[in-house]
């Protein structure tokens, strides 16, 4: 080192400020950041590149969903549930219909039960394929996996459109059944989509599962232990990736799920790779359910004997389903009028987000993006 440089260094140390020296860098990622899947902000404190603290900030997409629902009739908030988790409007509808059907019991006809299962499992395929695509996007595999995923999703959305009139905001379930029957030939078209799907999954697995970069970026990253997951109230694929066997389709057996044989895939490490693999495996199980449901579906009406005005007696209830993201529940208090007195949503992605800091601390900021991607959030549901 030259003498001049040494003096420069010495004089630099004279003007150094202790406050700056500790040098934690605070980065505000979002609300408009491509990795945050919507309008969501992470206040990250970094030591170099390593995350030492992370504060999720949400609420940017708050739309007053619960309070709005308390001011309108039971039926009128059905279309609003589509907009909670806008990838999975069918399962959102189901959770709400299930809760309402507990308030005022209405027999759901057999065909409607089957169609509900078919729609819910197709929704799971839509959600998991796009999640895997987005997750790979976060890893830096820009485009290809996501476009492959969207290519398949498109076919399912076409089915949704033919059945309900809309691709994403389906608004298809009603208290006591479904709004309308599927059009002629729909079941055959659904069958074709379901039959072609395993080929796509094979291709997807070949593309991704052995890729060294994917393995290096996801294994042992963002580990969530089973105990921690249970304590935090985590549900859905994220919980099962940590090795906890809890699937509401098996636990509650709502609808007619007890008639179908399917397995619940479990992870062991609880890292991002497990969370990613769980989704791929769950799709295979969904295909089994779809296969059986499309084979066994009877003909008949799709709407039960629902009263023209839905007016349950004063009571309260909690209805929940296994949405692709976890346990989606609706807590309703009826006061004997046509409007709910209290309407509360238990959104899975909001609660799954609460452990984000624990998952990210100690990893680099690039990993924080991957971890967030593996949690699978939709801000419409987080903020409501």
């Amino acid at each position, binding site marked *: 080192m030259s003498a001049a440089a040494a003096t420069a260094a010495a004089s630099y140390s004279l003007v150094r400020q202790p406050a700056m020296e500790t040098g934690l860098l605070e980065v505000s990622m979002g609300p408009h950041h491509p990795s945050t899947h919507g309008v969501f902000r992470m206040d990250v404190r970094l030591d170099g590149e390593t995350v030492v603290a992370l504060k999720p900030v949400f609420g940017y997409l708050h739309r007053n969903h619960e309070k709005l629902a308390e001011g309108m009739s039971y039926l009128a908030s059905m*279309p609003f549930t589509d*907009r909670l988790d806008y990838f999975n409007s069918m399962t959102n509808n189901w959770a709400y219909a299930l809760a309402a059907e507990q308030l005022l019991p209405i027999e759901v006809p057999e065909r409607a039960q089957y169609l509900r299962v078919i729609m819910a499992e197709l929704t799971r395929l839509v959600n998991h394929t796009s999640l895997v695509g987005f997750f790979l996007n976060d890893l830096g595999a820009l485009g290809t996996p996501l476009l492959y995923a969207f290519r398949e999703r498109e076919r399912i959305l076409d089915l949704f*459109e*033919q059945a*309900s009139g809309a691709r994403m*905001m389906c*608004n298809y379930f009603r208290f006591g059944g479904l709004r*309308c029957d599927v059009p002629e030939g729909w079941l055959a078209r659904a069958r074709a989509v379901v039959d072609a799907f395993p080929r796509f999954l094979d291709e997807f697995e070949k593309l991704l599962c052995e*890729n060294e970069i994917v393995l290096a970026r996801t294994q042992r990253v963002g580990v969530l232990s089973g105990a921690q997951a249970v304590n935090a109230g985590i549900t859905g694929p994220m919980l099962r990736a940590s090795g906890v066997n809890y699937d509401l389709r098996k636990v509650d057996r709502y609808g007619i799920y007890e008639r179908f044989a399917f397995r619940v895939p479990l992870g062991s490490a609880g890292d991002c790779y497990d969370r990613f693999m769980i989704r791929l495996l769950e799709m295979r199980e969904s295909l089994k359910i779809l296969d059986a449901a499309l084979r066994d579906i009877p003909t008949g009406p799709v709407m039960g004997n629902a009263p023209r005005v839905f007016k349950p007696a004063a009571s309260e209830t909690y209805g929940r389903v296994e949405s692709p993201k976890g346990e989606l529940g609706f807590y309703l208090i009826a006061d004997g009028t046509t409007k709910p007195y209290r309407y509360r949503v238990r959104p899975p992605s909001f609660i799954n987000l609460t452990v984000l800091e624990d998952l990210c601390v100690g990893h680099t900021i690039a990993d924080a993006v991957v971890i967030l991607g593996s949690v699978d959030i939709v801000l419409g549901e987080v903020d409501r």
Partner: protein
Amino acid sequence: MRLLGFGILKGMAVTLENFVRSYFDRDRRHHLFTKEYAWEPGAPAEVLPARADTTVTAHSRNFPILLHDGADPMGGIRCVACQICERECPPQCIYIEKDYDEQGKYIKRPAIFDIDLSVCMSCQICVEVCPFDAIVMDSQFELSTANRFGGLLQHRDQLLKSNEYYHRIHPEEARARDDRMAQEKAEKEAKQAAADAAKKKAAEAKAAAEIAAEKSKPEPSAPTAGGAA
């Protein structure tokens, strides 16, 4: 020994296969191209696509329209301005005022029926709650306008479409609706006829009883012949 990068190569083989197949696989070719919307720009709104590969199917919905029977929109308007849809519409984008004649008598049709399409969320709740089958969903997608504020506020006369138009855009649904309406009408008429008959009978019986009473007054001992009618 595991070759490092083997997984990546395998993935690249998949992408290459997809690339090549996209030129030969008919199914994939169909799905790899962007689909266009139904209406060619400039075509009259009433023309429906003859093309098979449109995203707008006979089942898709977007915004509500009002139906009328026959050729005269206001003559055949089905809406009676009962305002149920206005009350039920979740985002409250419908505004209705009832129509009155010169004497101030309500004439069962809307004077104003506005739907703000910039607020409407295409949920179809209005269609479901309407007891008169007066409002249904359209599938017209080319609605963009240069006017940000009033441009998407649709008034009654813009919303009014004929039942034939409805049959063209949603044939299956329209047929089912017409069948149900005809059935309901027949049931109602049968009920009305039954009610009328019962009323007539009751009136006759009453009249007969009155006659009998009249007769029995001056001559208490006379037989009540009319009572059996």
